[in-house]
């Protein structure tokens, strides 16, 4: 097994190991929060105004809660971060993306949903925050056996 892994690593021509310290901290309080409100408080995000310039694209119905593809993009000038919240998940905060100079405020990712829920995106721009929501229904697919 170990040999297999080593072969594999060798096969990945560009794989490089990086020290952990290169990465930023992880907001334990925000990710451990059991409500969306608490999570946002821990992130230091205040009242967010609904905005049409923040878009969530996701299927209205997901056949499987374990993989729900979502795409969030913002055309609000100066967007520096987007957070993703799934209201009814046991820990609602799913991710927070900080976009620095050189990146477009855009992300596509697959997320897990325990049940049918609203997905909320929060964008931070120019010291203000903006929100968008979208409901995704989670159903059962296949034979269930």
């Amino acid at each position, binding site marked *: 097994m170990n040999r297999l892994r080593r072969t594999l690593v060798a096969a990945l021509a560009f794989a490089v190991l990086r020290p952990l310290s290169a990465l930023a901290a992880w907001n334990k309080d925000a990710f451990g929060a059991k409500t969306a409100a608490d999570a946002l408080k821990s992130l230091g995000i205040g009242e967010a105004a609904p905005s049409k310039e923040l878009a969530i694209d996701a*299927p*209205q119905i997901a056949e499987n809660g374990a993989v729900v593809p979502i795409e969030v993009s913002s055309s609000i000038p100066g967007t520096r971060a987007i957070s993703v919240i799934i209201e009814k998940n046991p820990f609602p905060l799913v991710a927070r993306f900080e976009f620095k100079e050189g990146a477009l405020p855009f992300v596509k990712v697959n997320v897990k949903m325990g049940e049918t829920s609203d997905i909320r995106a929060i964008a931070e721009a120019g010291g203000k925050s903006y929100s968008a929501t979208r409901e995704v229904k989670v159903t059962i697919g296949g034979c269930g*056996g």
Partner: protein
Amino acid sequence: MAAALCAATTGLAQDARKEIQRYREMVAEGSPAELFELEGEALWKKMDKCDLGLGPGVVKGAYARLPRYFKDADRVMDLETRLLYCMTTVQGRSAKDATARVFGSADRPSEFESLSAYIAAQSRGARLEPGATHPKEKASIALGRELFFHRVGPWDFSCASCHGTEGERIRMQDLPVLHQPQYARPVMASWPAYRVSTSQFVTLQWRMNDCFRQMRTPEPTFGSETTVALIHFLTATAKGAPYKGPGSKR
């Protein structure tokens, strides 16, 4: 009134199906199947004297020509059966060792799964053309057809119970009518595949195995004539389809 209500409900179901379709497309775009191809490529390097039908070590286009008759083994083999044969001949492993884990888990894919991902990917764009001329190939396809319609087990199912009538579905899953080319083509052109619901890479031998599980029968043996014949029949029905996999499944 009743008719209007009914129409509204049908409209809802239509929308639901359209949205599920969109869900599947979005999931397919983000399929991690390529990760399994990487692992399979590394494994193939350790058995690249294996002849998949186009000569020792040739993978390009080999998957699209399977199942086929192999003279050295004097039987028809699909990809996984052939890989098992190579493990016991080229690699000199015991059958017991090679079949210890034919289906893997999300944490640890089986060799057959990773190898299938890599080898199938090397046939992208090639048309499916399984062997259909040798008498054993003809017999295999004919047996596969009989098996497809054979009702058996405590629930009286045959493959055709679910895959025999147009326009039906289980839950939200559309059921392809697999004995008809127009349905078999897109299906066979996308196996093996990454399966979203279990985060596993799944193969055709697994698909046959799990269908029989749900038919409540005993377990078919990996690489047996039964599973190969069914795969052969389905691939022969899909003949001519350009291979597009590895795909993405529910």
